[in-house]
């Protein structure tokens, strides 16, 4: 590989100059690193916002009875918590990581479409400002759950639903533009010699994710447009009284929604596939099978959507098809877990903060996968469906899954971004507090669900009291631990502990060949990959 990248970047800085000063730098920037930074800070702000809503929910559920909020407001909190975490925290965080890392990993000077990149970010603050403003409107914000099933979200919705529809449209446009950028960059701007099967796995998983986004975001846009028509223009897509079908909404929503779930986990697989080999000092086991497994999961994600709808009264043949196809997902997902563990097996392991979060990811994501396999069994799903068992399941794959991988990625690449090392001691504190908090919050929810507690209720019968109290305590522990993360990142930015170009002994890839911090412009001349 080329060793002239540092010179190349110094040269290019001479041509393009340093970043502009002040606010306009961030408003007008077309630089992938700036935009990546904007995405990451924005997603962290949304993570804290959605987190506060989670804490409102957990405070209300601390004890039976209504104490802090009324059911109307409780429903707005569950709805906005879900929407903000999915569209505001997890997805923009992955787009931010893609912006920062994909050009560095494929040896490109920037994303392929830098102006569109600026637009796709700057839509988001407006979309979420509008979504949050619904809380102040007459009748309150959206209160129909993040899945917004019709007709609760159409005929029976508060007037603010129109603003909700518009803001989701904006989020969708932003995601599609981000995805097009990833595809264009990955397919066109790889360094000479970097064939598809030599691409780093983060790039592979993001490429596949981008295709999922392009495929399903228009379906979401379609379904919310149909809602808009039903609400304002007298159509009856989802109203049986006019010849429509409320279940059609669910089919369309989940045809978007299930691939969406994988959109939030495939890039995580990529990040973990970088961190585990680095700290095992051993090549990733089964690179090719990782790529094929990712592609299989993406394909399967399109043919399993109705497993979210086992109780809507599907015909028997439909139930069986979606049960079998869903069970099948366990196979490629299993391959990934086995590969990570084989990578660690007989390696030379060390446990810096990124590796701790990666190991936490593997164990807890796998537990989330197990409960997913249980949910796939349709007859058993009649008992699990819409209970806290489902809440436990998807929080295990999303919190210690997607979010742990984002945190792990941040710790892994912070030295490259800031040029400074992270405080390892505080990083360890962050990890242990998070992992205890996350399990204390979500593990008891399995028991609550099996014992019969439905999800999305503001008050509950007395037999559910004890585990709810534990979950609430865990929620506060986890939530406040994330403020420590904020402190660690700020401390790292201000630190004087200079990071080497390659801070991790076992790391591989083009991103470690540029200086730390990565110069404003990198790879103006492409490196050569053997």
């Amino acid at each position: 590989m080329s060793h002239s990248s540092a010179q190349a970047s110094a040269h290019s800085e001479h041509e393009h100059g340093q970043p502009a000063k002040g606010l306009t730098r961030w408003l007008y920037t077309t630089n992938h690193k700036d935009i990546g930074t904007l995405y990451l800070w924005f997603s962290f702000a949304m993570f804290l916002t959605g987190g506060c809503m989670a804490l409102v929910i957990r405070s209300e559920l601390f004890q039976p009875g209504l104490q802090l909020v009324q059911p109307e407001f409780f429903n707005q909190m569950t709805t906005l918590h879900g929407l903000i975490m999915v569209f505001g925290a997890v997805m923009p965080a992955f787009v931010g990581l893609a912006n920062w890392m994909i050009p560095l990993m494929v040896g490109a000077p920037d994303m392929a479409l830098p102006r569109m990149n600026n637009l796709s970010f700057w839509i988001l603050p407006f979309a979420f400002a509008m979504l949050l403003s619904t809380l102040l409107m007459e009748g309150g914000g959206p209160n129909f759950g993040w899945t917004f099933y019709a007709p609760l979200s159409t005929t029976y919705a508060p007037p603010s639903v129109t603003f909700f529809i518009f803001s989701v449209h904006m989020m969708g446009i932003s995601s599609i533009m981000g995805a097009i950028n990833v595809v264009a960059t990955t397919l066109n701007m790889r360094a000479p010699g970097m064939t598809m099967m030599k691409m780093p796995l983060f790039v592979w998983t993001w490429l596949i994710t981008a295709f999922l986004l392009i495929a399903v975001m228009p379906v979401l846009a379609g379904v919310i447009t149909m809602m808009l028509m039903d609400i304002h223009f007298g159509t009856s897509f989802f109203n049986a009284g006019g010849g429509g079908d409320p279940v059609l909404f669910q089919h369309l929503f989940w045809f978007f929604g299930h691939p969406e779930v994988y959109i939030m986990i495939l890039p995580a697989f990529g990040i973990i596939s970088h961190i585990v080999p680095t700290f095992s000092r051993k090549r990733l086991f089964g690179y090719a099978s990782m790529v094929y497994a990712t592609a299989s999961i993406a394909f399967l994600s399109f043919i399993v959507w109705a497993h979210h709808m086992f109780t809507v009264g599907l015909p028997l043949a439909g139930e069986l098809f979606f049960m079998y196809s869903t069970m099948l997902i366990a196979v490629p997902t299993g391959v990934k877990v086995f590969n990570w563990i084989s990578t660690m097996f007989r390696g030379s392991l060390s446990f810096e903060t990124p590796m701790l979060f990666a190991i936490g990811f593997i164990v807890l994501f796998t537990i989330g996968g197990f409960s997913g396999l249980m949910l796939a069994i349709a007859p058993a799903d009649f008992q699990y469906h819409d209970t806290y068992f489902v809440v436990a399941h998807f929080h295990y794959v999303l919190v210690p899954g997607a979010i742990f991988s984002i945190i792990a990625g941040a710790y892994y690449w912070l030295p490259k971004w800031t040029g400074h090392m992270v405080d390892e001691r505080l990083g360890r504190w962050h990890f242990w507090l998070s992992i205890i908090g996350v399990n204390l919050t979500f593990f008891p929810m399995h028991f609550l669900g099996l014992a019969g507690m439905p999800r999305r209720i503001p008050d509950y019968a007395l037999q559910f009291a004890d585990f709810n109290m534990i979950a609430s305590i865990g929620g506060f522990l986890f939530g406040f631990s994330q403020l420590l993360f904020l402190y660690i990142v700020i401390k790292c930015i201000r630190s004087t502990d200079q990071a080497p170009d390659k801070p991790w002994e076992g790391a591989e890839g083009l991103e470690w060949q540029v200086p730390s911090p990565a110069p404003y412009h990198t790879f103006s001349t492409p490196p050569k990959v053997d």
Partner: protein
Amino acid sequence: MALLTLLLLGANNVAHSAWQLNMPEGVTQISASVYELHMIIFWICVVIGCVVFGVMFWSIFHHRKSKGAKPASFHESTTVELIWTIVPVLILIGMAVPATATLRQMYDTTASDVDIQVTGYQWKWRYRYLNENIDFFSTLTTPTEQIHNQADKSEHYLLEVDNPLVLPVGKKIRFLTTSNDVIHSWWVPDFAVKKDAIPGFINEAWTRIDTPGTYRGQCAELCGKDHGFMPIVVVALADTDYQTWVTEQQQAALSKQAAAERTWTLAELMQQGEQVYNTACAACHQANGMGIPGAFPALKGSLIATQDQAAHLDIVLFGKSGTAMAAYGTQFDAVDLASVITYERNAWGNDTGDIVTPQEIKQRLQAGQ
């Protein structure tokens, strides 16, 4: 936060609690099969988890750099990769077989002995015994003082209703679920029956209860503000007791019909009306008639409730399309409707002095919308 915790702890003492960890086995043959499937897949996960995490923690303890471990260089093995693709497939096929068998049984709704139409309303259930001509609503009875922590919570807090669904044991009971407004979901864990109630469509489910007893469940699909407050209570009786209950219900219905013919005074109507209002109307329009601004209009001092009596009858009997206001003409009998409208026209200082009689309601209903 600590202070808040103490306050909450002090606010009420939890009367009873249980550390239930697992799914109930239930009281039907289907619920037992479902429990069995749940346990099989659970143990499969436990075994796989032990193997996978076992290897992982072995590596974590023995292959540490700090212990001087040198990394091996292997990075692929077609044989191993094939094995861990094929073995899970075989396990899954083994799991799919019993799951398919149970699912086929659950879908066989033929040859039922009792047919019950279950209709979800915001936020109560309506049960119609299709062959016995019995029809009633089932509403939460937990007092609001308990919900707002002004009184100690009773044993079946939030899981108690005025009229439970009464069913015979040993008979095949078919449920036809549907909804009047949004999607609800009728769920009784002890029967392993959960079926969505969808407006405009009818879903089928069935059960055959083995043991007499009281079984409790809840609405499982988010259906608006009081989703957490529409429980399901089923009382399963021996067949002879069930027959007695059916006869009683049919006689009670006859005497209710007679009540609609007699003359009612304002005081009687107000008393009856307040009860109906609190079960059917107060959830949205609030007990004090003030509604919730932006969501549900106030009745106190409103034009319809103080002046236009014909419009008042129309909106209560036929609802208002495009809003959450349902058509109550099909939900209550003439006495209840007359009394609740009379109540709304005279309570909270509306004081119109108007009396609406059951006979007027009947005439209006016959005339149609």
